[in-house]
């Protein structure tokens, strides 16, 4: 697939929904080590609601309207911090793609850059704080480089997914600065961050979807 149009976007939300349903218990366990265990519930609920919403609106609504609706319903469904941050990402991504009807490599770069920036602003997080930002910022960087070199969407997303994995590995050496995990700063060293793991899931599912 060399571009994601409104039709395919609905399919992508289905992939995200299925992945977060499958990984629900894994995320609950991961978050439970230093957080309050609600991450798996938040993510599975919010992506289920997002898929239902975009499927109901249909492709005719258009690419950016679907992304906006997904963000809005996520904010409504899962009022936890991570749910709000994920929702913010989709709203900002929608804004960045205003006027576009397809996501190619350049649009994917713009989307993830806006997603990461939105999360950083809303969550008042910076790089190295051991958050989802530590995955999404390098992912956006890789996609920007891929777009500059003229790569097609599928190989560009594959490179982004590899970078996401590597970035997640790097969060293990960081100390948590935000949320309940911050209380356990020292003990978080060696653990992969739960929010950053969500970031990897988002990017990998998108990569897998455009490869298929």
């Amino acid at each position: 697939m060399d571009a994601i149009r409104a039709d395919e976007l609905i399919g992508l939300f289905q992939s995200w929904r299925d992945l977060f349903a499958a990984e629900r218990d894994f995320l609950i366990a991961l978050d439970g080590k230093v957080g309050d265990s609600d991450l798996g519930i938040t993510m599975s609920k919010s992506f289920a609601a997002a898929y239902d919403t975009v499927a109901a609106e249909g492709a005719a609504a258009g690419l950016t309207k679907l992304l906006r609706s997904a963000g809005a319903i996520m904010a409504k469904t899962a009022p936890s911090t991570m749910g709000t941050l994920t929702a913010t990402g989709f709203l900002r991504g929608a804004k960045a793609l205003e006027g576009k009807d397809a996501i190619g490599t350049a649009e994917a770069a713009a989307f993830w850059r806006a997603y990461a920036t939105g999360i950083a602003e809303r969550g008042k997080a910076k790089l190295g704080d051991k958050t989802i930002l530590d995955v999404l910022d390098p992912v956006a960087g890789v996609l920007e480089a891929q777009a500059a070199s003229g790569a097609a969407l599928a190989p560009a997303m594959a490179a982004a997914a590899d970078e996401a994995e590597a970035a997640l590995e790097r969060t293990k050496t960081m100390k948590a600065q935000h949320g309940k995990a911050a209380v356990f700063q020292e003990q978080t060293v060696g653990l992969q961050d739960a929010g950053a793991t969500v970031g990897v899931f988002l990017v990998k599912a998108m990569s897998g979807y455009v490869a298929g």
Partner: protein
Amino acid sequence: MKKFLNDPADFVDEMLEGIYRAHPQVTYVNDDKRCLVVAKPKAGKVGIATGGGSGHLPLFLGYVGDNMLDGCAVGGVFQSPSADQMHEVTKYIDQGAGVLYIYGNYTGDIINFDMAAELADIDGITVKQVIGNDDIASSVVGEEHKRRGVAGIFFVYKAAGAAAANGLSLDEVTRLADKARANVRTIGVALSSCVVPEIGHATFSVGEDEMEIGMGIHGEPGISRKKLAPADAVVDEMMERVFAELPAGKGDEFAVLVNGLGGTPKEELYILFRRVSQLFEARGSKVKYVWIGEFATAMEMAGASISVLKLDAELDPLVAAPVNTPFFAHYTA
């Protein structure tokens, strides 16, 4: 723990049911009792919304009424309400002139109000924000943006409410609210802990003969814990910090709020105010407006806070304006 409860899990919602039965001037939207709004919004007026955790009555919802606030998103005890609840309140109170959010500087509230503002923006509603940060004990001078919002937000509500009632624009209401915010300082002292109903035991402990100056309204650690001193000495120590930031000289005018945290009798609040008033008098300053009672509590915490607003020609008439809300009425002759 001795509390009047049915099921602790129903604490907030049953409190709200009582509010709606007692005060028909407020109601709720979206079939959600936690989205509290004025029953009769005024056409064309800038809407003012607040929100925050429960456990602080009259804060936050108690100031929704005539010439003060138009809506409030209500959270669980000491928990932020959701962005969605804030958004629903926003949609209802917007009369086409935009909406101002006024709330305290707490991470959860900020994330959710920011999110609500973004959702409102999609609906074409302009939202501005003023974030209360009056608690001088919670961070040093120069780091005011880290300070928590406590009882001093009352003055921000009052200034903004009066400005909006006068028909001013969203930009003007925001500017005046922010001016009140920048000119109010609060310092608190706690004598005992609060109990969150669903937890069921004291959040922290203060010794029988101890006080903690600067403790937050959720039990956040203060500046110093020491042996309880006579009331005048406690006020002197607290007001020294206030005067360091809000210089009070000859002819300066102020509004003062002496606030009980939930477990302190009004008699003691007046003993505190007596000394506050003496200190202003000694400096040749005038305390032009005084409110004493419970305005922002922390469940049953014993203790008090003192909020001081420095007045000027713009803020004075706004603070003096009459209001009528379920928890606070102020009539003028």
